[in-house]
Every structure is written in C-alpha cells, then in structure tokens.
C-alpha cells in the first residue's frame, strides 16, 4: 500500500510532512507534493503533520479524490525529492480551504 497526497495540498504545499518521512518519499512540484508509491512504507507518520489533512492511506482516499492515487504515481518519477521543509507558498492560507482546485495544479 501507499499513502497519497490529495487536493488540499494544491497551491498550499506546507511541507511539514517531508521532515518526518523516514524514507524520503515526497516529491515536489511547483505547487503540489506527491508521495512516491514505490518508496512509501506505509508508516503513516506524515498524516497528522499535514495542516490541511491532504494525506490519506490509499484505501481510505475519499471517493472524489480517487484520481490522486494515479496522479501521485504518475508525477513522482519526474519531480524532485524534497527532504527538508520550507516555507509554504505565499498565498497558501487563502487556498487551504478551497475545494475543487485540481485545475490549479501545475505539473
């Protein structure tokens, strides 16, 4: 199994999750993070770190977020590894409660 980053992360990218990952499996894009499903060991440490509850176990991803399972797998090979947290995107707080923002994702 793997954990999956879902929509809430888009345009926020708080990055608290990456500091706690024991296997460095987060990958960073311009305005979103993903988890490399081949590296994630299912330890769940990152879940409570996310201030916007964007991370779910693969089997618990909400119905309307299912496409993110594939998206994490597709984007992780091309995005670079991120292992240390950094400041969130400048307008993260304005975007954190916005729903249906998949169209905002920059690949």
């Amino acid at each position, binding site marked *: *199994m793997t954990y999956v980053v879902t929509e809430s992360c888009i345009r926020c990218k708080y990055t608290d999750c990456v500091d706690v990952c*024991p*296997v460095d499996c987060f990958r960073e894009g311009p305005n979103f993070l993903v988890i490399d499903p*081949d*590296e994630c*060991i*299912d*330890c769940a440490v990152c879940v409570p770190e996310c201030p916007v509850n964007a991370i779910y176990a693969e*089997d618990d991803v909400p119905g309307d977020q299912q496409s993110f399972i594939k998206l994490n797998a597709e984007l992780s*090979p091309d995005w*670079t*590894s991120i292992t240390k947290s950094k400041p969130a995107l400048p307008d993260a707080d304005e975007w954190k409660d916005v729903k249906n923002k998949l169209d905002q994702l920059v690949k």
Partner: protein
Amino acid sequence: MLHSPIEADAVIIGAGPVGLFQVFELGLLEIKAHVIDSLPEAGGQCIELYPDKPIYDIPAVPVCTGRELTQNLLKQIEPFGAQFHLGQEVRTLEQQADGRLLIGTSQNQFFLSKTVFIAAGVGAFQPRKLSLEGLEALEDKHIFYHVKHPEQFSGKKIVICGGGDSALDWALFLVEKVASVTLIHRRDDFKAAPKSIAKMRELCASKKMQLLIGQITSYEVQDDRLKEIVVTDIDGNTQLLPVDDLLIFFGLSPKLGPIAEWGLNIDRKQLTVDTEKFQTSIPGVYAVGDINIYPGKKKLILSGFHEAALAAFAAAAYLNPEKQIQLQYTTTSPKLHKALGVSSPTFE
C-alpha cells in the same frame, strides 16, 4: 552453487525486533530457530531507519534508541543459539507433501522447516534503483548496486551516484585504483561522514576526482556495454560523460517483494492471521509484527512481542500435538532457568 537444505523446526524470516523476540519465545519452549534477513546485520527498520532515534513505548524501558533495542534483544536471545543467515532475501516458500516448508533464499540456501515465522515488517530492504528504461539488462555487468569484487573496476572509467557514506566510501576507495572516478549527486549536499566529505572535496580540488551535481537522465549502450551517460543539472543543462561501469548508491528501501507470491491470504499487502495463533492461511506458517493484519491491529513493536509469544505457543502445539504445553514463568521455573542457562535461585 546449490547447498543441501538445512532441516529445522523453526525458521524466522526477518531479524527486526519482533523476529528477534520470536527467537526468545520459541527458545523458552525449547524450539531452536534459524533467522534470515536481507540486511547484513540484525535490527530491521530499527537499525536501517531509526538507529539513533529514541523509542519511548517499549514497556518498562522509558527510552532507548533503535540500536539499543536491537542490542538488548540480541543479548536477551543469546542463550538460545539461533543461527543467523544475514544478507540474503527469502525468495520462495513452498509447502511440501509432508507438510514441511521449503524456503529458498537469494543465495540459493534452502531450509526445510516444520514451522515458519514471517516477521518481515514492510518487506526486505533492497537498493533503490536508478529508474531508466532497460537498465536491468546491464545490472551486475556494468551497473552495480553493491560491490563484491572491487578489483574488477581497475583501469576503468567509473561513475558513482549518491550522496551518502556508501557512495563516498567507494569513491575514495576506488579513486587510486581505476582510470577515473566521477561522483554524481543531485545536489551539493552530502549526508556522509564529515571526514569523507572533506577528503572528496580535496580530491576534486586537485582534479583527481570529478564531482557533478545533477541526475543521470539517459544512457547510451554499444555492443552490450555502457558507453556514455547524460547528466542533467537543475537548470536543465546536459552533459555527456563516457563511462565503463556505473555504481549506484541511492540507499535502501523496503519492498514486500516475493512474499506476495507465496499463496498466503493477503489484505492491503499484509498477511491475514487469526488472533489466537497468528497463523496465516498455510498451517505452520505464522506472521508476526508489522506484516500481519487482523481486526484491531496496531503496528506497534509491543503488539509484535505479544504476537510472537502466542505464535510460539501455537507452534509448540503444532510441532508436538501429543504434548501438553505448560505455561511457565521465568521467575520461578527451573525448566526455563535451564533453557536460559541461568542458575535457579534458592529460597531459604
């Protein structure tokens, strides 16, 4: 080379904390165990991922590191003389006609055991691969994830990838013995012994070694040999580099691997067990620790210890169906004192 199988009463797959404690619980019931692990040393995740991180939830141990926990467990199981088979991954598990289980490892070592305890956590730790199409064909020929025979690189143009101790140690070791060494890391930040980093910088400054910051993005093959690689830096600039052999040290990552193919019932990549015996869908095969799943399962080391105790009792009954298995206490039982190799206290 094929070895004749080792006959055993119990084989434990995984030398993490739960696998080690399984040795203890079996030992008290006078069952000797063999332990197999893919890592070169015992400890599993505790050694590979958290050697220096404190653990606070081991009962009666207010705090200990992953390494200390491993060392204490090894000390605790010493009386039972378990045989360790490290640095090899279990590939196959097949039930034989007589009910015994045939286990085969990556080093062609076979075991014929009456019981098996799978304490494999999240799987066997394996080297992270460089993910470029078609590279597998060159593995162990011109692309290496571990080095067995360093002399084979003499006179060759060597490229080493990675930013940890393994990458730097091999770069420093090989630099005088090969035609050239180029170290490639995705950023100019190394997680290795400061002394090795300083030495590497010194060698680069004196042009004895080359350091490139970037990633390998493609490669060229000629006559089944590696010819050159393309290194792309963070700004997208590419550079061609001639190479004979490529050594890759991207660290280790656990993979469930072949366990999924042993015909055991699996739910969410974990082995389903009952909570009386922690037995899998194959009789005599038990699963303990993070690898198992049952209603209410919590992935805690202490849960694994409990599971190991009950699995050991179940195995004892399975191995000796005629025999009544008594629960004995290490404080008072002369029989257990004998097993532990300690003298029984005398009371006056």
